[in-house]
């Protein structure tokens, strides 16, 4: 599919358009926001600043330590996006390489890799992530690693299936017969054809990664020095914002997660419709 027509189809798709707009807004906030709005998690406010409702000075009120909630959310957008995207990249690299290897070479390699994938598919991912995060210690890189390493199994399965169909194409036979190396065939013939599928999958996996990060941070596994939305929710819950009815403290960060994840799901659905034309006409 031509690049231009692809983008046109995407923009024409209502879900894709809405998702894209929400996503762009968050990207802008994450890029520009922290430059304009300075936030220091160590900068506790005065006693009278604690748990103040929204006002002109504090757009979204303050938390239990007198910090500005709005600033925390702006700073958190960067963490949530970085963790979500980096973790997804790790998952994609592992899932794609294992999937292609498995599908392309087949035989014993395939058997072994698919058994391994099955194991990762059934591992209780949340407990596993929690255990890993606890063992490795709370840092933003560990969280990225943990989410990335546990989230590749689904991708591997999809990529393998697609590789199997691509492998049967005639031009692959032809490339082989003129002596092209495996690496060459994978790089020039298999990967470009599997790519659209990987791309659509990436977007859906990013949604899951962002949710995982939020959950891990909420359960206290987050990096306190780089608070994400999940970390803010963790402190809100632990400090009893709920019983104090400090809605401004626990509603906005969750809403941000909801919108960002929703934007990815919408874009993923739209891409799915474009990549699988069968869904379009129906």
């Amino acid at each position: 599919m031509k690049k231009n027509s692809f983008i046109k189809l995407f923009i024409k798709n209502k879900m894709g358009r809405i998702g894209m707009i929400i996503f762009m807004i968050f990207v802008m906030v994450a890029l520009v926001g922290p430059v304009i709005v300075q936030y220091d998690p160590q900068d506790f406010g005065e006693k009278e600043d604690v748990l103040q409702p929204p006002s002109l000075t504090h757009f979204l009120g303050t938390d239990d330590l007198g910090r500005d909630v709005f600033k925390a959310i702006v700073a958190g957008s960067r963490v949530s996006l970085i963790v979500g995207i980096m973790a997804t990249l790790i998952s994609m690299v592992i899932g794609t390489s294992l999937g292609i290897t498995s599908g392309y070479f087949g035989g014993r390699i395939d058997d072994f890799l698919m058994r391994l994938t099955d194991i990762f598919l059934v591992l209780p991912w949340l407990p596993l992530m929690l255990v890993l995060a606890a063992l490795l210690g709370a840092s933003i890189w560990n969280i990225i690693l943990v989410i990335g390493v546990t989230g590749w199994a689904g991708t591997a399965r999809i990529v393998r299936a697609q590789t199997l169909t691509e492998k049967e194409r005639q031009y692959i036979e032809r490339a082989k017969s003129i002596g092209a190396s495996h690496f060459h065939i994978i790089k020039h013939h298999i990967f470009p054809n599997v790519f659209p599928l990987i791309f659509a999958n990436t977007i859906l996996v990013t949604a899951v990664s962002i949710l995982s990060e939020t959950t891990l941070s909420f359960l206290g596994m987050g990096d306190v020095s780089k608070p994400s939305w999940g970390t803010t929710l963790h402190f809100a819950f632990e400090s009893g914002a709920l019983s104090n009815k400090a809605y401004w403290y626990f509603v906005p960060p969750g809403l941000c997660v909801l919108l960002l994840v929703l934007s990815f799901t919408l874009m993923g659905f739209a891409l799915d419709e474009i990549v699988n034309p069968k869904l379009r006409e129906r």
Partner: protein
Amino acid sequence: MSRKYLLRKVFYAILTLFGVLVINFFLFRIMPGDPISMLVRNPNANLETVARMKAQFGLDEPVYIQFFTYMSNLFQGDFGTSFHYNRPVLSVIGERVFATVLLVGTAEFFAIIIGVFLGIIAAHRRGSKVDVMSLSFSLVTYAMPSFWLGILLIAFFSGFLSILPTSGMTSPALFFATGFERFFDISKHLILPALTLALVLIGEYMLVMRSSLIEVLTEDYITTARAKGFDEKTVLRKHALPNAMIPMVTIVAMSIGFVITGALQVETVFSWPGLGRLMYDALQDRDYPLLQGIFYISSICIIGANLISDILYGYLDPRVKE
């Protein structure tokens, strides 16, 4: 479904379980900050505990002997002793099973009925208001962290309306009450956590049911059924649903397998005394034997559910051969 199919599935399940056990074994040993070093750094640990830990894990032995001991202990149902509770892990876990089963069972019960029902309506009337609303609902509940949904429900029903309790399974005052009073009290505590879990599941089930039924309704045998002169209701009930339910059964079985994982967030928010909350507490206390124990149990649940779903699949879909 043939015996060969069954045996192969059982064999794969055992193989997977073995894989999980191996990963688990190395996970707790090779990682930086393994249990012992964490324990030594822990000011609450005394020498006696450290020694007991070392003996339990057999850390002075070579790795293959450690692995052998580890496996044979597991087979004897010996999951070690919890640091925090100072009791066998299995008995600590045993006490919490009921609460989780009650929570998840209630949520699943309503989620399956409502999710399947909404999915059928949505598929049957594609593009209608019901369809669009159900779809939006699924998208939103999917994008929401379930703990946050729980928090919102607490804020609304307990903070704003003040009608339901927010945490635990029983009111302290009613701890020794019996019979109907106690049942009523538990039910009241159950509503919010079960609702949270159910809302998330309804979205998922509805989506699966919808797409599965839409797919089936385009099949030729549905045209045959219509050509036979059956009304739409009969076509749907007798000819479409038996096919459309097949993927549904798999999804439900899988989600029941992920029960502990699924309940973890909700149980944490609502302080529901189940396995999920136990896991969260074990994590806070760095109670490794307990953590590992829950990890095994969750894995066994998932692999077991997977196996059951494979068996059901073979039973429901006569095309599954071999």
